């Protein structure tokens, strides 16, 4: 298996080459090209030895994480190698990270795809954190071993954390297990936090890596929104 970031910059995408017998998984709708021997099927998110109910539960939880109900899977079906291209919905970079032994946790909507050896699970963030982080109530946890693809709005930077870092809410893409975060005010008193326009931030502590995006989608929404016509009905 080879995972290559095919286009960089504002319109990032990934090209995955699979050997016979290998499998890649992505959120539904992310495929934009595939070789003709690639078998594309839809899979529920259920874990091993779970029935229909488990599939439904996992699917609904994933939707709370801003992800699709189903996953798409790609496998070459003729014993030859094949390729599949994946691209996110919105503009921004795509980044590939190694899972194992590190476990990665992706904020809502950041997950793009992963290789077959990765187990995906959802992680409820708690009501307070979920409501105020702007990153979704539920995060996606990727464990096992393989390649994980994430997408961000804007440029993606990787930061090695030892000690602490403050990330503005709306900028988180993913972090490794071992890091903990709390939601808190940006600094000083509440008034100065709100007036400085930052309001709430995520304070990370511990050891690990954090992936952040340069831009905050809700701020673009704030600029673009007033320029759009009112909705009818």
């Amino acid at each position, binding site marked *: 298996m080879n995972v290559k970031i095919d286009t960089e910059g504002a319109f990032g995408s990934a090209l995955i080459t699979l050997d016979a017998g290998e499998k890649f998984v992505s959120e539904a709708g992310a495929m934009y090209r595939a070789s003709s021997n690639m078998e594309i099927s839809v899979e529920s998110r259920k874990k091993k030895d779970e029935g229909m109910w488990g599939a439904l539960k996992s699917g609904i939880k994933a939707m709370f994480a801003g992800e699709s109900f189903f996953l798409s899977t790609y496998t070459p079906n003729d014993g030859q190698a094949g390729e599949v291209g994946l691209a996110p919905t919105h503009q921004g970079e795509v980044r590939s990270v190694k899972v194992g032994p590190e476990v990665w946790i992706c904020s809502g909507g950041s997950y793009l795809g992963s290789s077959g050896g990765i187990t995906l699970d959802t992680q409820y963030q708690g009501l307070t954190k979920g409501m105020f982080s702007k990153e979704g109530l539920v995060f996606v946890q990727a464990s096992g071993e393989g390649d994980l693809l994430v997408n961000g709005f804007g440029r993606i930077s990787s*930061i090695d954390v030892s000690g602490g870092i*403050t990330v503005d809410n709306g900028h988180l893409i993913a972090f490794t297990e071992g890091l903990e975060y709390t939601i808190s005010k940006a600094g000083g008193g509440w008034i100065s936090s709100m007036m400085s326009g930052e309001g709430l931030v995520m304070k990370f502590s511990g050891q690990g890596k954090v992936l952040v995006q340069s*831009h905050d989608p809700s701020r673009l929404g704030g600029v673009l929104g007033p320029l759009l016509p009112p909705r009818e009905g």
Partner: protein
Amino acid sequence: MRFEVKGNPSYGEVDVDLGPNETLLIEPGAMSRMSSNLNSSFQRQGGLFSAMFRKMFGGENFFLGKYEHPDGGKLTFAPSTPGHVEHRQLTNNSLNIMAGCFLACTPGVNIKAKFGGFKAFFSGEGAFLLEASGNGDLFFNSFGGIIEKEINGDFIVDTGHVVAFEPSLNYKISGMGNWKSTMLSGEGLVMTFSGVGKIYLQTRTVDGIASWLTPRLI
């Protein structure tokens, strides 16, 4: 203060290394990450009246976020829209910036809103512009990439594409040729700059993306 602009032209952001007791003033909401020790507070830029004026007419905020610490620290900030971030060092001179394009500055820079005159109503940039003057570092942003152009003589720019220009330049609003080509070329009004100086242009406009996106919204 050390800084590095990264990610241009699509997603410009600025990494700053603040020295001990150095201060940076940033447009509210633009901070994306920082060392946990940095203090953030807010500061009114200029006098009460000038801050109010800037808020009402300059498309900017009454307060600016203020970041500092006795030991210094690291900070990254980015504008709200995808695009280029440009830096300019001011040394006792000034630069005219279009409303909404201001991103950050050091405390020696003064930002005030200035009426652009009657012609500014037709410029597609808002009737007021910002004048940055003084000494220090100034950061401003565009939607899309920024093209720098040295003008010597006349130069025509479509309305909505100007980010900033030196005060030695003057402009007037006009049509493209006669009224027929003005209406049918799809350009409408243009700005004709004259004089000697530098102008910063943006390759895209937010109005353009909004009208492209509108029919696709469901």
